[in-house]
């Protein structure tokens, strides 16, 4: 199962993560941390960037070790790979980039439990070489980042009346949106928009979550 297949073109790999297989809006993965964190644009952006970096690194390292691991233990091995990258990032940031760490420290620790990362390693890194894995990881990471920015800005604008902590409207239009339930409503609405655009463009809807049950 670890034979390398010819990879799809780079543009496909990048766009797939952003649109057709957007981790949040099409695959509905990692909704729990996504909902918890996206109460503001800044939070969403930080988590998105952290996930992007870990996704790229983990996808690439998954591809490097695919030939030497027993397929039966690949899931625990992937989890350990992700944990190594996350812990390493956490320690290096804390030691050498103290000011950055103060801002992103919390988000970095959350990433170990992210389903998107392990699902990309399982679905893509197991079958492809390092370079396509970089592009796939980048696409998926960017897709997640875009989803976080979109959700975060919507929730901050509607719930707190501000963007990046700067007040845009002088009142709080809909406080519900910043609460956890509001996070699910927001993601549901954007998900519906994605599906609507998809139908308009004449695509068929995938029957269940785009084929990835991470």
């Amino acid at each position, binding site marked *: 199962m670890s034979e390398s297949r010819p990879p799809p073109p780079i543009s496909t790999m990048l766009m797939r993560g952003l649109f057709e297989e957007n981790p949040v809006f099409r695959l509905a993965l990692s909704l729990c941390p996504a909902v*918890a964190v996206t109460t503001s644009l800044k939070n969403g952006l930080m988590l998105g960037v952290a996930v992007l970096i870990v996704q790229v690194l983990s996808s690439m390292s998954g591809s490097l070790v695919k030939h030497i691991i027993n397929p039966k233990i690949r899931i625990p091995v992937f989890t350990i790979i992700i944990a190594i990258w996350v812990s390493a990032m956490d320690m290096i940031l804390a030691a050498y980039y103290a000011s950055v760490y103060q801002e992103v420290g919390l988000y970095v620790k959350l990433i170990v439990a992210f389903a998107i990362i392990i699902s990309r390693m*399982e679905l893509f890194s197991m079958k492809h070489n390092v370079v396509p894995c970089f592009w796939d990881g980048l696409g998926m990471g960017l897709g997640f980042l875009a989803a976080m920015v979109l959700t975060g800005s919507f929730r901050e604008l509607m719930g707190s009346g501000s963007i990046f902590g700067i007040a845009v409207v002088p009142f709080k239009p809909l406080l519900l949106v910043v609460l*956890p339930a509001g996070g699910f409503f927001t993601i549901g609405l954007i998900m519906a928009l994605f599906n609507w655009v998809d139908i308009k463009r004449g695509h068929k809807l995938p029957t269940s979550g785009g084929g990835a049950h991470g």
Partner: protein
Amino acid sequence: MSKTIDQAPPNPREMLIIAAGLTLVCLVAAMILGGLYFVTQPAKEHNLQMREQAMIRGLLGLSPQAKILEVRRYLRSTGTEGRDLQVIYLTARKLVSMDLNGKELGLHAVPDEVASSTSSELKNEWVFKQIKTSDPEQIKYAGRFFVGVEGTQPAGYVVEGVTAGYKNWIRFFMAIDSAYGIKGVEIIEHEEDPGLGAEITQRYFKNQFAGRSLEDIEKITVTKDPLPADWLTALETLGDMPFQPWLEKYREMLPKNPNIHAITGSTISSAAVTNGIKRALGNFRKRMSLVEKYL
């Protein structure tokens, strides 16, 4: 899964290989992380210390020439029962051990290289050596506070406190004046949820404690009422403005907002910090009355 794998029960030999493989992977991972920890830990500790010192100066409004003295507290159990407990304080001048009622049991002078050191490890080791316990498990580090000294006069205290947060400990600094009133609160370490409990680090929450007297804090509770807009504006300015002028300007707003307004969706974290501060302030008053003459 896109591929099905052979689900027949593995034979013992295969199981052994799988177990050995997993063990190996974990060992390699542990070695990588252990090595990295070893390399990064000193830098991380140094950063933390610099941040703490800067925070103490900020909280007490100290000048750059002011000195910050650390007072460490240890507990020593001499018997198996809790009543045989001794409290040991390491101040900048003295190492004093006392019983729970404050009766002095032993006193040592502290050499300069220990007093001026910023390394908590060095201080702990020196204390353990002085106490000469046969069993190192007997004595435990139990907390610390700082005295800001401006010239020769104490300019205020900063107490380090811990409280159980939503998932993990919340560590905070609390600045206190000589009348045990609170001058400010900073959250140093926490693992609350971003966007919810993590809001305890925001000015609109932590500054609600500033300017309260000991009696105010003893009565304080957490309320779910929304934060009034004028009080919010006042809270957001502390930090841009030093504590004293801030208190002069907004003093009359404190009695109008006698309780701590909880963060929306994070009552547990809000209550955790409030109770932690209540407890830490009460304890500090008792301890200070015992240790004051040794400072």
